[in-house]
């Protein structure tokens, strides 16, 4: 049982890492000069991230 769980776990992480590697390869490079502020609170810049509560 433990052995098969470890096998599933290895497959799961392999799939996740493969997805992230593929995504990095096909996505445009990150604009490091346009880095978001380290701490949003006090930066004056509203967050532009996606959130599940937002309908749009």
């Amino acid at each position, binding site marked *: *049982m433990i052995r098969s769980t470890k096998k*599933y*776990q290895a497959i799961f992480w392999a799939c996740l890492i493969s997805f992230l590697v593929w995504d990095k390869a*096909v996505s445009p490079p990150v604009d490091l000069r346009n880095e978001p502020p380290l701490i949003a609170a006090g930066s004056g810049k509203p967050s532009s991230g996606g959130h599940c509560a937002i309908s749009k």
Partner: protein
Amino acid sequence: MKRLPLSVLLFLFFVFLAWTVSIRQAVLFAVGIGMGAALAGARFGFTTGWRQLIEQRDPRGVVGQLVLLALASVFSLSLLGHYPELTAALGPPSISLLVGAFVFGLTMQIADGCGSGTLYKAGLGIPLNMGILPLFALGSFLGSVQVGDWLKLGQIAPIGLVTEFGSAQAILITLVGLLIMALATRLWVGKGKTWWDRKWLIGALALSILAALNLIIAGQPWGVVYGFGLWAAKIVNAAGLFDPAANAFWSQAGNAQRLNEMVLMDITSITNIGILGGALWISARASSDSKPLTSTQWMVGLVAGFLMGYSSRLAFGCNIGAMLSGISTGSVHGWIWVPLAFAGTLIGVRIRRHYQF
């Protein structure tokens, strides 16, 4: 894998993020690791807490959740009052929310894990939750594609307590609401029950601090579901099966931009990956136990996982995005979500029992 090499790998990924993406994303990854470690270490399961309350009249899990909600509300509502650039988890009260929350509450009992529960249990290596994760993502994507149609059935604009009443009154209203929930719990369980559990309280304290850190750093509350939907959307889009420009949700400027960017730049995705890593770190010492499932249980569990993903989009969040982040940032949709999801859970625990999970 043992904890030391795992810690080294997580640290190397932190450095990679700081070097190639942004320092903010690296720090959010570290916050996510903390969330995963807190969830898995304390076995802070929203689903389990509700089930124990219903089936055993054991209030400890729900009391832990109420403590988490109270602490997170005090932190987050104060922050929202001080920093106008921070955003609340404001979802629209709507037919979509009513249906979504009910179905989510029902299916999370069958799948034995809400959004965060699925993540940390997948990180712990529990086979059903690892299997559910991709289906949850697919369901979440399909929900996002169709949420515009669901909203046409009826909605009102999101209501934020901080905007309506100010920070101090929002905290007062929220704490009174949580006190009413605690009293209802007391009425249901009766006298002579143990109310406090050290494990749940430590989890509540840790998660409330980490949720506040997420808000301070990211500028938005903790969420889980958006990241899942984005991952599936990227794959479906790359396969040429979907035209985001023709969809109401994915054609929005922000969503279209995130669909084009690397997922490691997305806030919710990076905390989700952190949660998986944090739970994996916990599992390195305390291996999880899960009984083998029959093929029927697998099938029912996977279908429930898919529906959970779909309904969480309709409900504008799961236990984290709608309940924790919604209530703690003063969104009325969070207060609507809880009774509907609980009503669904009342049915979900019976279905769970029927299939002998």
